[in-house]
């Protein structure tokens, strides 16, 4: 606590950096992942190869991936964001695909039977109904991004990892704590915000008498 109180400016700056890294990578990941996911629901034959590739990317240890990206992107924010996007794809693509594909087929049929165009079906039916599953992926990815971004301190991306590694090198628990506390708050807070957002977007499920379905998170 001591370090935080003595250096509030530094902690705040690093926290903001950390938020920046996570936010950018999660935002870009969602856009790319959801689009790829939607494409996979239309061209099912690509599902195997694409999900396979995303799965492989997901298994590469983060430090190794950061290192491999240095020749292409140098140090700093760019390789970090790129790596986080690669990591996020599996969860987002997979959840988008299963979110859309697990919608009751009769609902899709009704949408088509009433004369919706492909886009209308996507925006009025598939995405809203697939949202719970997609959001589960987003929450997973967000917490992961906040965690993995810590390691990116090694390739000079900044963020709260700086404090943790500094503390480890100097064996100063105060400094480690100054990095870890905001990190924990960040992860829990981000998840909480997403849960609230999800509830707002899913009023139609909230409104029903409690079935236990919506009490997750």
């Amino acid at each position, binding site marked *: 606590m001591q370090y935080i109180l003595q250096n509030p400016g530094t902690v705040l700056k690093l926290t903001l950096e950390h938020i920046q890294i996570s936010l950018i990578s999660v935002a870009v990941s969602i856009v790319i992942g959801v689009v790829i996911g939607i494409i996979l629901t239309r061209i099912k034959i690509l599902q195997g190869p694409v999900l396979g590739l995303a799965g492989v990317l997901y298994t590469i240890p983060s430090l190794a991936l950061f290192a491999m990206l240095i020749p292409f992107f140098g140090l700093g924010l760019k390789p970090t964001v790129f790596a986080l996007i690669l990591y996020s794809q599996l969860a987002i693509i997979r959840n988008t695909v299963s979110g859309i594909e697990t919608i009751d087929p009769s*609902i899709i049929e009704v949408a088509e039977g*009433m004369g919706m165009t492909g886009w209308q079906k996507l925006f009025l039916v598939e995405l809203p109904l697939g949202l719970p599953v997609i959001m589960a992926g987003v929450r997973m990815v967000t917490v992961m991004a906040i965690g993995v971004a810590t390691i990116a301190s090694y390739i000079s991306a900044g963020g709260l990892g700086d404090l943790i590694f500094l503390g480890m090198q100097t064996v100063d628990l105060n400094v480690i704590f100054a990095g870890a506390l905001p990190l924990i708050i960040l992860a829990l807070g981000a998840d909480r915000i997403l849960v609230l957002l999800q509830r707002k977007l899913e009023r139609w*499920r909230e409104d029903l008498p409690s079935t236990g379905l919506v009490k997750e998170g």
Partner: protein
Amino acid sequence: MIRLENVTKQFGVVKAVDQVNLHITPGEFLVLIGPSGCGKTTTMKMINRLIDPSAGRILIKGKDISAEDPIQLRRQIGYAIQEIGLLPHMTIADNIALVPRLLKWPKKKQRQRVEELLEMVGLDAATFMHKYPRQLSGGQRQRVGVARALAVDPPIMLMDEPFGALDPITREQMQDEFIKLQEQVKKTIVFVTHDMDEALKFADRVAIMNHGKIIQCDSPEMILRRPANKFVRDFVGSDHTLKQLSLIKVKEAMITDIDTLHPDNTIAQAKELFKRGSSNIVVVAKTGEAIGYINREDLNKTPEDRFVSEITVNSISTVASDKTLKDALTVMLKNDAGYIAVSDENRKPVGLITSSRLRQIVSEPRLNSREEQ
């Protein structure tokens, strides 16, 4: 209105629909029925191009639909399936206004239409508009489904077992309401079901399908009276005698020559009626309602200066004249009665149904069809 010419649909090697020809006239209620996998749903879905035929063509109002934009086509055809077809993430109002919204109606007109339709299907607009499908009962959701199919007042409606997921009591009630609604809106309806009773209740014509082919397409009476082959006979079921009863209205079959007496008429007056050849005497209250009957034995034992009320058997069940003979039989069985009174809408007795009359009807070689009435 709708014409199917040699329509075939092949899935792989299976012919789901095989050389089907159908001509559905405007305002007609056509029921497609058959065992599961017989091709009835596929046939229906080809009409709004959810499925395209492998061969043959379908014409709506003389135009080949394969040349039309499926999106535009579907917006002009009402579509209702089992109650789960409501979009769970949209309010009742949004569900009903879906097609108007796709057609970009002004907001105000959409809202008016929603209110109008909810009222039409018997739901209070203010209460239900902003609810979500899950907050409604099965029957209520089904009403919303029908309202949605009617939203842009399409001349044609396709319905795929819309009452299938309801419990029997609600289903019966919905069916009765739907018949009344159809009398108002007069749509051309293609209705898929596997429930023969439902088919007989609604249909102007029933098309019985098996293995992709139409085995028989005929009026309910003819299906029951003259099944084309063993398959139809089996499909209709061994209780077809009972089913016939459900096709005949009480008022078409009742004994109309009845006489009425008041409780305070004298026995002499009653005897006078019998002497004039009357055999069916119903005792009615001052209000006009049937309250009982008298029989000849009691009459003969009683002095002439006494009153009818003293020998009235105070138990007579009644059935409304617009019910079916099946309903009448149910009342008779329930009350262990050999005969029951038929009352009109003012609850006045207008006739009688007796068990011998029912026997006579089911053994008649030919029914008066409803059209002749």
